[in-house]
C-alpha cells in the first residue's frame, strides 16, 4: 500500500537544534550544535557518524527522551508542521508510540527481562488506544509475524532471554511499529547482530516501512549501510552536520574533508577499491621477505623453539567438544564448538578466520594460543607439536614467539597497571634485560605503535579504545614474537580508528615480518589485511581459499551470503 507522498509537506523538520548536558553547576557539554534536517512522509533518511558525533542524542531529542541532564538548548523541532520542543509531558506522551516510534539499539537491555514479550508489545497497543483485551492479544501475534518472527503465537508467550538476538530485534521492531506511527526512529537497530541477520532484518524493515508508508530516521555508524538503505544522507561530526544530500552523490563525490575521510577509509567501502588491494599486496611482499630472513636465523639458532619452516602454524583436525548440561540435571549434551578444522599459516602472511557468532572462530584462536586444550587434533608451531612441550622453559619459549591481541580494549589491560607496567610485564615474566633496558624497550614499542611516550605513566582508564588497542599491540610485540593472533582486534572500534589500527598492523607486518592469524566477523576488513581466508560456520570450515578467490568467485553459497551482507556491497564506486 504505497501512498504517493510526492506533494506532501515535510513530516519532521529540525532547525538549528542545540542539545546540551549539564556536567556541573557551570559547565554544559554541547552534544548537538546547530543541526538542521528534513524528513518527508514515507521517506528513509540516514544519519551517519562515529561515536560522540551526536547522532543518537539528536534522535532522542526528537521524542524528548534524553538521558540524565540532557536538554534542548535552542532551535526547533517541527512535527507535521507543529513545534514540539515546548510541549508538555502529556502532549509528548501522546506523540510517542502513536506518531513517532522508536526501535532502540541493544536488543538485550531494551526489553524488560521480567515480562513476556507479547505482554510488552500489548502494552504499546493499550497505551496508545489502538485496542485492548483479546483483540490486542491477537494483534500482538499479527505484529510479530509481520516483523518476521516465525512461530509468533508461541513466541509471544515467552520471555526475552529465550529469544536470540535477531528475534529480540524483530520484537522491538514490532513494538515500534505497533501503533502505526508516521515516523520510526531506528537507532543503530542491527549493530549488535551478525551480518547476515542484519541484512535480513534491514531488508524486512525496508519492505515493511515501504508498505506501511512509514518514514524512517536511520541512525548508523556505517556509511555503506546508510547509503544502501536511504536516499538522503546526513553526516554528523562532533555535534554538527558536516554534509548532507542524496546518498549516492555523497558517496561518489564527498566534499567535506570528514566525509572524504570516511569514504576513503571505512572498510566496507574501501575494501572494494583496487587501491586497497594493491596496498595489501605490497605489504605482503615486504613481510614475506623479512619473515624469510627471520626464518633463516631461527633455523640456525639453538635457543628458538622451531626449525624455521615456511609454514609457521599448522593446525590439523582441530576439534573441541564442550559437555553442556541438558534440561535435566543428569543429561549431558556434547556440543562441538570446533569440528575438524585444519589450516596453514605461512610466514609473513595473514590468514583470516571469518565467521558469525557461534562459528567457533574464537575457540580455534584460543586453541592455537594454547589457552584451551583441543579435544583432538594438533597444533604445530614451526614444526613442533604444541602438546609435546612439557618443561616450563619450552612453554615460555612458545609464549615468546606467539602473542595475542584481544577484542575488548576495555578488558584486555589490567586497570590497576600503568601502561608502562602492562607493556613491561612480558619482559619481566621472561626475565629479559635490566630495568633500564626494559624501559628503553617500552619506549621503543610505544614509538612503533605511534603513541607518545608520556603515555607510559598513564592508566588504561584514561585512554580511548583505539589507544588501548595500540597499547595491547605494543605489549604483544614486547617479546619480538613471530606470530600475532588478533582475535577480533578491531571489531569494537569506531570506523576511522579501525582503519588506523589496520594500517598500523599492516605497517608492522611489513617492517617486522610478522605472521598474523586474524579472527573477525567482518569480511570487509579481511580484504585489507589478509591473504588467505578460512570461512567457518557452526564449527566447520565452509571454504578455505585466497582472499582474491573468495571475493571474486566464492565457491560456497554461505560465503556468497556473507559477501552480499557486507553493508554497502551493492553500491558500486569507482577505483
Amino acid at each position: 500500500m504505497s501512498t504517493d507522498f510526492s506533494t506532501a509537506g515535510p513530516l519532521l523538520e529540525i532547525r538549528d537544534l542545540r542539545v546540551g548536558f549539564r556536567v556541573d553547576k557551570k559547565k554544559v557539554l554541547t552534544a548537538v550544535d546547530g543541526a538542521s534536517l528534513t524528513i518527508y512522509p514515507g521517506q528513509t533518511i540516514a544519519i551517519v557518524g562515529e561515536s560522540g558525533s551526536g547522532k543518537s542524542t539528536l534522535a532522542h531529542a526528537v521524542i524528548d527522551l534524553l538521558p540524565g541532564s540532557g536538554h534542548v538548548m535552542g532551535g526547533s523541532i517541527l512535527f507535521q508542521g507543529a513545534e514540539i520542543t515546548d510541549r508538555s509531558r502529556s502532549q509528548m506522551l501522546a506523540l510517542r508510540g502513536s506518531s513517532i516510534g522508536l526501535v532502540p539499539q541493544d536488543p538485550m537491555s531494551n526489553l524488560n527481562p521480567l515480562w513476556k514479550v507479547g505482554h510488552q508489545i500489548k502494552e504499546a497497543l493499550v497505551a496508545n488506544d489502538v485496542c485492548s483485551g483479546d483483540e490486542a492479544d491477537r494483534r500482538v501475534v499479527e505484529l510479530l509475524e509481520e516483523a518476521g518472527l516465525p512461530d509468533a503465537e508461541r513466541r509471544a508467550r515467552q520471555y526475552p532471554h529465550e529469544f536470540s538476538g535477531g528475534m529480540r530485534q524483530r520484537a522491538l521492531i514490532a513494538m515500534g511499529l505497533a501503533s502505526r506511527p508516521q515516523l520510526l526512529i531506528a537507532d543503530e537497530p542491527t549493530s549488535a547482530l551478525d551480518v547476515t541477520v542484519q541484512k535480513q532484518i534491514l531488508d524486512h524493515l525496508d519492505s515493511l516501512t515501504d508498505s506501511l508508508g512509514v518514514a524512517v530516521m536511520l541512525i548508523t555508524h556505517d556509511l555503506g549501510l546508510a547509503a544502501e538503505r536511504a536516499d538522503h544522507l546526513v553526516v554528523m561530526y562532533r555535534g554538527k552536520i558536516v554534509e548532507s544530500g542524496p546518498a549516492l552523490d555523497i558517496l561518489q563525490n564527498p566534499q567535506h574533508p570528514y566525509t572524504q575521510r570516511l569514504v576513503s577509509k571505512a572498510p566496507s567501502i574501501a575494501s572494494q577499491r583496487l587501491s586497497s588491494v594493491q596496498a595489501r599486496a605490497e605489504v605482503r611482499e615486504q613481510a614475506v621477505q623479512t619473515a624469510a630472513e627471520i626464518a633463516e636465523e631461527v633455523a640456525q639458532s639453538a635457543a628458538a623453539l622451531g626449525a624455521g619452516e615456511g609454514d609457521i602454524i599448522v593446525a590439523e583436525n582441530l576439534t573441541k567438544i564442550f559437555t553442556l548440561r541438558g534440561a535435566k540435571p543428569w543429561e549431558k549434551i556434547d556440543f562441538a564448538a570446533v569440528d575438524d578444522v585444519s589450516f596453514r599459516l605461512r610466514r609473513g602472511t595473514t590468514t583470516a578466520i571469518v565467521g558469525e557468532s557461534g562459528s567457533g572462530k574464537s575457540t580455534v584462536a584460543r586453541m592455537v594460543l594454547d589457552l584451551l586444550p583441543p579435544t583432538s587434533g594438533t597444533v604445530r608451531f614451526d614444526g613442533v607439536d604444541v602438546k609435546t612441550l612439557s618443561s616450563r622453559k619450552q612453554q615460555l619459549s612458545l609464549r615468546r614467539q606467539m602473542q595475542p591481541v584481544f577484542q575488548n580494549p576495555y578488558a584486555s589491560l589490567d586497570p590497576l597497571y600503568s601502561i608502562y607496567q602492562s607493556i613491561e610485564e612480558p619482559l619481566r615474566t621472561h626475565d629479559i634485560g635490566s630495568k633500564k633496558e626494559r624501559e628503553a624497550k617500552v619506549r621503543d614499542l610505544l614509538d612503533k605503535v605511534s603513541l607518545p611516550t608520556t603515555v607510559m605513566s598513564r592508566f588504561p582508564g584514561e585512554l580511548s579504545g583505539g589507544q588501548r588497542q595500540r597499547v595491547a599491540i605494543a605489549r604483544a610485540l614486547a617479546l619480538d614474537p613471530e606470530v600475532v593472533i588478533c582475535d577480533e582486534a578491531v571489531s569494537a572500534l569506531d570506523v576511522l580508528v579501525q582503519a588506523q589500527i589496520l594500517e598500523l598492523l599492516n605497517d608492522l607486518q611489513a617492517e617486522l615480518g610478522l605472521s598474523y592469524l586474524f579472527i573477525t566477523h567482518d569480511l570487509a576488513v579481511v580484504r585489507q589485511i589478509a591473504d588467505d581466508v578460512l570461512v567457518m560456520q557452526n564449527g566447520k570450515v565452509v571454504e578455505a581459499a585466497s582472499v582474491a578467490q573468495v571475493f571474486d568467485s566464492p565457491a560456497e553459497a554461505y560465503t556468497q551470503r556473507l559477501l552480499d551482507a557486507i553493508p554497502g556491497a551493492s553500491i558500486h564506486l569507482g577505483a
Partner: protein
Amino acid sequence: MSDIRPGQERFVAPLEETPLRAIDAVDVDAVPESQWKEAWKRLRASPLFWLASVIILVLAVMVAFPTLFTSADPNAAKLGNQFAPASEGHPFGYNFQGADIWARTVYGARASVAVGLLATLATVAIGVVSGAVAGFFGGLTDTLISRLSDVFFSIPLLLACIVVISVINNIFPSRGFWGSVLVVVLALAVFAWPQITRQMRGAVLEVKNLEFVDAATAIGASKMANLRRHIVPNALSPVIVSATIMLGVFIVSESALSFLGLGLPQNIVSWGNDLSDAQTLVRSGQHLVVMWVPATALAITVLGFVLLGEAVREALDPKARK
C-alpha cells in the same frame, strides 16, 4: 527519488565551523590517574568521609592516649560515691559502683576497638583467601568451600557466639584482657567469614573471565601468579567496603555479647559491660546518665565506621549515588 525536495538540498558545512581533529589523538597534557587515585579524589570530596574520619581519629586518640581525656581511674570504685553527681574532672558523675562514668567510657573504647579491629582482620583474612581459592579454582574446591560457608552462614551469628563463648568460659574460666578479647574475636570470626568469602568469590568469578587475565597467561604467567598479580587486586573493592562496615558491626556485637553477660568478663572495662549494668536502672527510669554516656559513645563509634564504609563504597563505585 530524483527530485530534491526543499530542506534536503546538498549541503556542505564550511570547514572553519567544523574543523577536523586528528583521529584518536592522545591528550598529552593530562595528569595520569590510576583507579585508586581517582577513588581517593572522590573520597576527599565526600562530606561523609570527613565526618567519619574525624570520629575515627578522635576514637584512635582516645584508645592510644586515654589520659588526654580524663585523669580519673575507671576502676576506682568507692561505694560512697554511688550515683554522685557531676563535679570537677568528672563530667558525668558516678555509676552504681561509684566509679567515674566518663573515665569508664574513655577506657572502654579500647576493648571495643580491639575486638572490632582484630575480628575484622581475622574475618577478612579467612574470607579473602577462601573466596579467592573457591572462585579461581572452581570445581570440587569451590563446592566444598561454598557448602562449608553455607553451613556456617546458616547458624545465626549471635547464637553461635553465645554457644562458643559459654563453652570456652567453662573450660578457661579466668582470662586476662587479651585472652578475653581473643575468645570473642575467634567466636566472631569463625561464624562471620562466610560473608566475605561469598563476596570475594563473586568478584573473582567476574574478574577471572576478563581478557587481561588471558593476556597474562599468554605471556607465560603461571596460574598462581595470575591470581596474585591480576585477579585478587581487582576483586578487592567490594571486600574493602564490607570490611569497613563489618568493623562497626563487630563493635556492636561485642557490646551485645557483653550485654548478655557473655562478652568480656565483668572486670574488664567495656561499653557492653556498662550497658549491661545499666539495664535495671532503665526500667526504673532513674540515673539514666549511666546508660546515655556509653550508649552514645558506642553509637557514634559505629556511626563513624558505617559512614566510612558508605563513603568508600561511593568512592569506589561512582554510579552508586547518582
